[in-house]
């Protein structure tokens, strides 16, 4: 089977890419989604706070997805749900399987990778202790509670202060559970401040910063007690600081990893800083005609930005289909002081403004983001506050990009006087 554009994943990234590609003149677009319906993880994110940038109103996850699904219905994009992609090859062949259609090989003109990310598990962080039932990732508990209708615990400790963990602290509390503590190994929270306020403080749930779980004790195969200890500045537990919580459930909100098995199998270059594909400003990967966007590239805080980034990918895929050409990289963006990663990492076209997402590696109060080429400061952006949990975004103008006059620019952050 031959198709124009194949989009892998029908969550917010895939939906926005498909709609934009269709608007940009691509026809013969196919979305492949492994779940039974479109919308991705938004379907279980029943809380509000989505769409403030995009729609200027505060929507719940299903409402946000619903808006895009409605828009998709007015296009000619076709959708295969309940279909799993098994392999993507470097020459743009997509191998997938479904109960309805069996095994399929699709030759794609262009591909958008929009597989999203998945949660780190207990195994990924090596929590000591018994291995009973009652240890869940926060997202699993969220799916059980919000989609399947199962309450997975009554007395809960949450490890990690990522947004999903915070949201679940509130959700479990509202449904009658007692959330005893939220424990964070870092000296600052990994989630948005607003979620600390409305998910923990509203429910009098204590947040223990610079603490971690050091033991899990079970009784009859179920979690019965959790030990929490303070950690030193090397994140090692400090003796004598043990606290014990009698509980039946431990939820983990300890980070997300872009889901890139297909990307790696295709031989696409991966950025070790993000665990996602290295992309240029039009979201093209190291294989021409293969694009990637959303949480499969880097983990976002806000779905609004996932949509925005995916529209870039959709538009670029449509342009590639019209004119399949290979454009070389004009400029590379490098991490400077206190910058963990940037997306994009490469810039091909310096004629248009380029939006750059990045994260800082520590908390900043009054500070400045600097873009430099060699010794020259090209541009500087003031900030009142920056934190690793909050993605930063700057727009580099064409003038700035042209001023660079070298092969690379550096983005760095420092305190302002």
């Amino acid at each position, binding site marked *: 089977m031959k198709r124009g554009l194949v989009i892998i994943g029908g969550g917010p990234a895939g939906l926005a890419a498909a709609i934009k590609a269709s608007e940009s003149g691509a026809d013969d677009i196919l979305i492949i989604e492994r779940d039974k*319906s479109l919308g991705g993880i938004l379907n279980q994110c029943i809380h*509000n706070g989505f769409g403030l940038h995009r729609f200027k109103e505060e929507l719940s996850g299903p*409402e946000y997805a619903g808006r895009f699904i409605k828009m998709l219905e007015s296009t000619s994009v076709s959708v295969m749900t309940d279909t799993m992609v098994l392999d993507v090859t470097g020459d743009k062949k997509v191998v997938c399987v479904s109960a309805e259609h069996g095994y399929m090989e699709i030759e794609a003109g262009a591909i958008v990778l929009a597989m999203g990310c998945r949660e780190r598990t207990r195994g990924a962080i090596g929590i000591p202790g018994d291995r009973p039932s009652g240890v869940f990732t926060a997202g699993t508990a969220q799916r059980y509670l919000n989609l399947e209708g199962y309450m997975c615990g009554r007395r809960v400790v949450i490890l990690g202060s990522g947004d999903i963990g915070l949201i679940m602290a509130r959700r479990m509390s*509202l449904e009658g559970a007692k959330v005893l503590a939220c424990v964070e190994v870092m000296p600052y929270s990994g989630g948005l401040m*607003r979620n600390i306020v409305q998910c923990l403080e*509203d429910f009098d749930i204590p947040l223990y910063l610079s603490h971690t779980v050091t033991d899990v004790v079970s009784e009859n195969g179920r979690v019965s007690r959790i030990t929490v200890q303070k950690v030193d500045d090397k994140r090692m537990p400090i003796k004598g600081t043990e606290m014990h919580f009698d509980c039946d459930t431990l939820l983990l909100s300890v980070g997300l990893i872009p889901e890139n098995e297909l990307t790696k199998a295709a031989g696409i270059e991966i950025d070790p800083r993000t665990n996602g594909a290295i992309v240029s400003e039009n979201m093209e990967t190291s294989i021409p005609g293969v694009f990637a966007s959303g949480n499969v590239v880097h983990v976002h805080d806000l779905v609004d930005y996932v949509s925005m980034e995916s529209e870039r990918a959709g538009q670029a895929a449509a342009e590639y289909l019209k004119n399949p050409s290979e454009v070389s990289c004009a400029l590379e963006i490098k991490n400077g002081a206190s910058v963990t990663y940037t997306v994009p990492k490469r810039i091909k076209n310096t004629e248009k403004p380029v939006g750059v997402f990045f994260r800082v590696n520590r908390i900043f109060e009054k500070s400045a983001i600097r873009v430099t080429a060699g010794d020259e400061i090209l541009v500087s952006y003031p900030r009142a506050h920056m934190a690793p949990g909050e993605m930063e975004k700057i727009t580099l103008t064409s003038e700035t990009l042209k001023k660079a006059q070298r092969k690379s620019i550096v983005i760095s952050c420092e305190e302002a006087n």
Partner: protein
Amino acid sequence: MKNLICIVCPRGCRLAVDEENGCAVSGNQCQRGAEYGKNEILNPVRTLTTTVRIESKIMKLCPVRTEKPIPKAKMFDAVKALNAISLKAPVQTGDVAFENILSTGVNVIVTRDISE
């Protein structure tokens, strides 16, 4: 003076609310932050999001939310009231699932289309 973190949007502005001066707000970057700061002292409200049961071929639960924020103190009772009802598919986003919850004057609305 009370220090708050604004929860209106993900920016998380650090607000200072002067209770002795008619709850004047500083530190906000938009008008909605000023409103939030004042309300948070005088009458804290939250949008409630939860689920209700639904008779459907495909879903067990239907996501819902209050159309407007309701008093923070009423959230638990509102969830209790919503756990006692059941909807019947089809429902559409925006349909009223529960009218005037706990006499707040606020309706609870469906947030997902469930077709069958």
